[in-house]
């Protein structure tokens, strides 16, 4: 049931999609995100939308998802997709038969030529505990060529602090199974600055992850998101959060340790061997267009007239199952295209990225006073050694990465 208030705040996106499709200048959308909202158990730090114990709703969900995908597909204009990312939740909790159904739906509605040729990226988030040869074979046959393993930590004590339920030994097993199934690329997700964690313990986690032979690591400092159990426990005084200086030490250690292993930082929290960056995430961070399906999934669609549409699917599974306007669910947080907002978003993410940004190109269509203000901020950040310039792009320096939020706020304050 949707409350009247939610109904009031939510919007149907069907007319927007129709309008975009009618625009002859629309460029084909080449990226797709799918959200699978199921988990075994809710990890205490997690604020993603997911439900536990919903086996009976997996089938209706997969059916409904199929309708949404079909409704979105025309926006790709049958051009081959460059990236697909299936996240959650725990996508690998979906029963194998439903995976088969989902992958078939994708094949039916989208051009997966590049993916099947291994020229494009198809990632799935995987809980190592759910890995099985049967599932991985299905994924591989459907075109999946990259798995992102949620390890978080290899230390049972810290996994317990996070209330993350899996046996650390399942991670190497899952990585090996992926290889066997022919899924070449794996990434491992880790969390640091867990209360009580020491620098040597974090180093041990990193070492374990690196010996798995992955070519991509995501290392996130634990963030206390509002409305999570972890934050409630923090407020209650159950534990002391990690000291700021130790957290900075851990982060700097991460950068160095990864570099030594040949994984370069290409975003604040992401490290990859050359060519193994996550193309899907890079699409987000460079404000490309992407389609998003499933409850709570966020879309971004560039408008041919400038700026981009953003919205987020209503995050409740029940709403998702029952709201259907020509295949589209209702959305919240709708933001119509606004070139100046797009500019803020681009600057906001550029300061977090190794590839940085080409400022001249970015400001091409921006009015003079705004462009000058942005240039002044950039010049100041360059002078302070937070940014550097190479190949006519501005990029964060080592110290710039550390204060990326501050840099972003400085840009936002002149926009």
């Amino acid at each position, binding site marked *: 049931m949707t409350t009247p208030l939610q109904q009031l705040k939510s919007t149907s996106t069907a007319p927007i999609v129709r309008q975009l499709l009618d625009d002859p200048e629309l460029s084909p959308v080449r990226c797709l995100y799918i959200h699978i909202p199921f988990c075994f158990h809710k990890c205490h730090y997690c604020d993603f939308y997911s439900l536990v114990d919903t086996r009976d709703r997996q089938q209706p969900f997969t059916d409904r998802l199929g309708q949404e995908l079909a409704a979105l597909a025309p926006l790709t204009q049958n051009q081959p997709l460059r990236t697909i990312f299936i996240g959650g939740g725990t996508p690998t909790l979906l029963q194998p038969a439903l995976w088969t159904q989902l992958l078939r739906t994708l094949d039916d509605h989208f051009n997966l030529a590049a993916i099947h040729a291994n020229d494009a990226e198809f990632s799935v988030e995987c809980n190592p505990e759910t890995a099985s040869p049967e599932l991985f074979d299905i994924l591989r046959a459907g075109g999946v060529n990259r798995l992102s393993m949620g390890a978080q930590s290899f230390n049972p004590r810290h996994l317990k602090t996070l209330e993350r339920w899996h046996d650390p030994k399942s991670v190497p097993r899952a990585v090996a199974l992926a290889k066997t199934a022919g899924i070449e690329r794996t990434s491992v997700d880790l969390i640091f600055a867990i209360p009580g964690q020491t620098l040597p313990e974090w180093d041990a986690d990193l070492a374990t992850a690196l010996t798995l032979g992955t070519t991509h690591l995501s290392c996130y400092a634990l963030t206390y998101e509002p409305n999570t159990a972890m934050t409630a426990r923090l407020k209650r005084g159950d534990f002391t959060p990690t000291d700021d200086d130790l*957290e900075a030490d851990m982060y700097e250690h991460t950068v160095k340790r990864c570099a030594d292993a040949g994984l370069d930082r290409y975003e604040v929290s992401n490290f990859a061997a050359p060519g193994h960056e996550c193309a899907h995430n890079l699409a987000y961070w460079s404000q490309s267009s992407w389609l998003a399906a499933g409850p709570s999934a966020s879309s971004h669609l560039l408008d041919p007239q400038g700026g981009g549409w953003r919205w987020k699917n209503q995050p409740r599974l029940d709403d998702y199952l029952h709201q259907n306007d020509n295949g589209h669910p209702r959305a919240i947080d709708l933001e119509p295209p606004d070139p100046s907002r797009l500019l803020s978003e681009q600057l906001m993410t550029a300061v977090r990225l190794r590839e940085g940004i080409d400022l001249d190109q970015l400001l091409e269509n921006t009015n003079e006073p705004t462009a000058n203000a942005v240039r002044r901020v950039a010049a100041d950040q360059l002078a302070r050694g937070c940014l550097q310039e190479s190949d006519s792009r501005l990029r964060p320096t080592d110290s710039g990465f550390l204060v990326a939020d501050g840099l972003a*706020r400085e840009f936002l304050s002149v926009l």
Partner: protein
Amino acid sequence: MPIDREHIRNFSIIAHIDHGKSTLADRLLQATHAVSDREAKEQLLDSMDLERERGITIKASAVTVAHTADDGQEYMLNFIDTPGHVDFNYEVSRALKACEGAILVVDASQGVEAQTVVNALLAFSQDLEIIPVLNKIDLPGARPDEIAMEVEQVLGLAAEDCIPVSAKTGAGIPELLSAICKDFPPPRESLGDQTRALIFDAIYDDYRGVVTYVRVFDGRLKVGDKIRMMGLDRTFIITDLGKYTPKQTRVKELGPGETGYFVAAIKTLGDVRVGDTVTLDSNPATDPLAGYEAPRQMVFCDFYPATSDKKGNDFEDLREAMEKLQLNDSSFTFQPVHSEALGFGFRCGFLGLLHMDIAQQRLEREHNLEIVQTAPTVSYKVLVRGKGGISEEIEVHNPADLPDMGQVLEIREPICNVEIMVPNEYIGDIMKLCLDRRAVYKSQQVVGDTRQMLTFEVPLAEIIYDFYDKLKGLTSGYGTMDYEIALYRSDELVRIDILINNEPVEALALICHKDRSVQRGRVLLQRLRKQIDRHQFEIPLQAAIGGKIIARETIKAFRKDVTAKCYGGDMTRKRKLLEKQKKGKDRMKSIGSVNIPQQAFMAVLDTGDE
């Protein structure tokens, strides 16, 4: 009820907080049938709620009831509330001025407390007859005999004169009423034809303007009279005259010895001065009644709007709210100030700490404002070298206004007489605390078997710092204290300047004793360090006296200011988060490129850890 002067009794009820003053007043209303038994529970409260909703002031400062004594004679009893918290002795004393007697309520299980003593002393000093009452005798822990001895020992009121009562069950109330009629003297005779009435309270009412409470000593007041306020020399015409019984009851006139209120189209409390004498314009008295001194503001602090838009609307909102508040409370002062750090605000003067807290809370609650308050300081008398070698005295109640120390000959500060009541086992700790706070020991008196009353002279500046909290802490809450300002005395006082990132911050400057300056400065810097977020650069915090650094702390530069996640595709969320952080920063006050949160200005107030 026309009643002759001989049968009028004017009295107040005084007590230490929670000893049962209000409950006893209710019981008296009930026993004199001013309210029915049912009303005593429901009606009274209901009508008060109604009044509150309509924004009419509910407080009746004086209640008049009729009582038929044992001998069949009818009496008019006027009992005058001692308004507000008894922290403001001046408010109690103004009520006592209108009375011949006082009922001193002492909790029979708690015994004589500091406020009991101070209030009793006030009543003695005004020559009032006192009836000591031991309340709460229904409690299992009541020790009326022992407490009666305490009353005798400490206050010199005969133990056998104490009346044991329970304001809860009504036990002893008839005896109390007899004593009121028998022991309290009637009002004195009118001294002449010229009307003189003492103003002992005034409240503001949205509908009628100022309602003024008076006690008539000589002559009469009637509706239609043109009255003159002798002190302010202003005239008004009485449009309404009445009493609270406790329902509002109009009367045609108030005669000698009577108590009541009048309304006279007076628009603000500034036009009425408590303690002033009212006389008739047609036949004015030559001398006013012995009034009392106007209340003196002893504690000062700044109020600033927490937000400040460029147009200055926030400042204007604050000004408007302060003006409204002053309609209700004429005993605080305010004048505009400007501070480098906090922008435009007001320097405010209050009677005491509690008064300051109440004003701040009312501004926030009733006027929906967010206020930044600076640490309170007392008012100093400073002797400075004037022109031509003649020294002159100036009043300083803002540390930043203290002239250059080269000019200063002497700084004098307000000193209080403090009565402290403590269980014997804590005496050592309290002595130590007092000496630590520059107190001068005066006397010590035994109270019962278990407690003593200590009297000290303590600088007000120490009291407003953390004296009371410390006293409560050291005595597990059993110690009580009360104080009144007694004199000004000079001491070796210095101004500590606080520098943040090498910039002096006026709003954080403080005056304190030289011997305590290093300690005070260090504590303040430690608190500041916790309040100010790390910045991109290292921030030195320094305390200095006349350019000499006496303490320092450093806020290390932060090393990391970046959230781990960009929230996948949910860019909206990330952007909103950054914008919110930016707004938070905009709302902070910025000094020398350091963002200082508003709480930091209160850091000086925080007496939690030392």
